[in-house]
């Protein structure tokens, strides 16, 4: 268990202010934030590379704030692997056990177990410089895990990998965590990565931990505009909440959408592009918000097509390539955009 209390650290351009965080035993916790948000500094401070300016770090009930890195028993894996280039893969993995003077047969057994877990049998006698990025990352993870660390810190472990390798290693991370159950703190700027791997996510912005929650909570209930943008909310607009009888609406210029919210006054509203239905004609459905617009842009994105509809403001919707084909979408065409009340997320 990791417990950070009012942790602050100022280092060069990076500042962490008053970070409070508890990562539960066996939890896979991901800290998500844009590049330069101070994420690496946070991990390095937990592992003991930097002394915090103030605050405390507790691990499994011990205050380790003033311990040396070597006393903390924390596994650390960097984005750029940082394998020892002068040692073969095998000696890299066994490094921590040799320092601890573990008996040879125990060491051998641990090595075999690690190697099988990470599928790196064939690499043992090679030097790190001859390995691919994905292979190096596996070795780095094996080197950290073999010492049975109390917590595992992963610094953007997937960012330097090419897409196919990344997906494979991401699945391996999931599998390994289910097997080893090591309490893990993983930082990344990639929300999809966090969605797949994390039990919980903390979003860090400008050195502050802005919101903590389960992946889908963040996805659907971002607390601020920055977070909304970061988790892939495309349509974010300023609006004003109005109450009419039992129902609540937001006014956005000439548009009025029905929403569900406890908030009052000036707010931000956001709609996920995939929650918007495009139709050639209006049809009666349970969806309460319907408006007409003109297509102002069409562009492919991944396997989908991103359609921008001018409804008084630009509304971005994602449709499948097949739907794009069937609706025969083209620029200047008139369409209906339809979405449910619950698709409109209201926040301050």
């Amino acid at each position: 268990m990791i417990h950070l209390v009012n942790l602050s650290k100022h280092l060069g351009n990076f500042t962490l202010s008053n970070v409070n965080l508890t990562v539960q035993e066996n939890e896979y916790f991901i800290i998500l934030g844009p590049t330069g948000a101070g994420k690496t500094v946070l991990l390095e401070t937990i592992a003991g590379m930097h002394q915090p300016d103030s605050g405390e770090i507790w691990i499994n009930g011990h205050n380790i704030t003033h311990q040396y890195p070597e006393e903390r028993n924390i596994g650390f894996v960097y984005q750029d692997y940082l394998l020892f280039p002068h040692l073969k893969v095998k000696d890299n993995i066994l490094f921590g056990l040799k320092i601890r003077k573990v008996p040879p047969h125990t060491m051998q057994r641990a090595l075999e177990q690690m190697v099988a877990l990470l599928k790196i049998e064939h690499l043992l006698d090679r030097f790190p410089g001859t390995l691919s990025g994905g292979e190096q990352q596996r070795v780095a993870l094996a080197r950290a895990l073999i010492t049975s660390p109390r917590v595992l810190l992963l610094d953007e472990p997937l960012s330097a990998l090419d897409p196919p390798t990344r997906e494979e290693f991401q699945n391996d991370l999931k599998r390994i965590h289910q097997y080893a159950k090591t309490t893990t703190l993983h930082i990344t700027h990639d929300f999809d990565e966090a969605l797949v791997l994390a039990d919980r996510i903390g979003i860090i912005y400008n050195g502050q931990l802005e919101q903590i929650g389960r992946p889908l909570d963040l996805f659907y209930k971002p607390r601020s505009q920055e977070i909304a943008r970061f988790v892939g909310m495309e349509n974010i607009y300023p609006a004003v909440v109005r109450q009419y009888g039992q129902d609540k609406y937001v006014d956005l210029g000439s548009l009025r959408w029905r929403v569900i919210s406890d908030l009052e006054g000036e707010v931000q509203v956001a709609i996920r592009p995939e929650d918007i239905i495009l139709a050639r004609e209006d049809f009666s459905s349970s969806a309460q918000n319907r408006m007409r617009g003109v297509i102002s842009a069409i562009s492919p994105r991944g396997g989908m097509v991103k359609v921008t509809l001018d409804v008084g403001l630009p509304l971005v919707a994602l449709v499948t390539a097949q739907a794009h084909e069937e609706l025969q979408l083209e620029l200047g065409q008139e369409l209906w955009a339809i979405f449910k009340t619950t698709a409109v997320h209201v926040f301050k």
Partner: protein
Amino acid sequence: MQQPETDTTSSHTPSNNNLPFRDQRFRLSGNHIFKGVLILLIFLILMLVFSALVNVIWKGLGSLAASLATEEIQFAIRLSFFTSITSTLICILFAVPVAYGLERLNIPGHRFISVILEVPLSLPPIVCGVALLLLLGNTEAGRALAEHGLKFVFSVKGIILAQFFIITPYMIRVLKSTMADISPRLEFVARTLGCSQWQAFTRVTLPLARNGIIAGLVICWARAMGEFGCSLMLAGATRMKTETLPIALFLNMSVGNLEMAMASATCLIIISLVALLLFELLGSAILQSSERI
């Protein structure tokens, strides 16, 4: 983009770009002159160095065997090897920790310290010699050290100190850049794996600095071998006492014994060539191993 391939690198199709048309003939002849000047300069420098060295070796080789048989040259060779190896070993003992400390400890004023340590690099060695002589000659410090067996003035120990003084800044400089190339995060990772600072240094940084250390050893040893001005001032030039190869060259030259002088010079040139060769070999080995890294 199914247009016919146009060679955008050649300039004789000015039609489909907006760059001003340039006369290819002029550019070609300009390039030729430039290349010609480069080759001429290379050739000039090569001729100067080559003819000067070959001339000495040519004159020295004839009498080399006879000169090598003399006790004086044998003494000079032995003394040169003894002093240069000793000073280089002492140098490395100091330079590794000093370079590491300056690079990693973040001592306040470490830049200033580095500059001071590098001053002897740009000073004429003879000035260093004078400075050491004034420090250790007829002074309290000099007498105190002499009483404890460290008499530097006009002695073999003086030669070693002089060489040490001249080569150590080089070694520190080489090692500092070597250490700077090794990520401190590697040591940090080693420490998360349970290493103390000392263990991280000996198990990670030192092995990774190995090639730099070896390269530094070769350069510094060769310089120590040829050190003249500083030891001349501090240890003097006494025949058969503080007579290293450069001193032997100087002494014999000044009394007009050209054969012995040439023999000393030839020995020094051969030693330098061997050192250079060694350095080149190590260099390519370092390149290969850094490709591995």
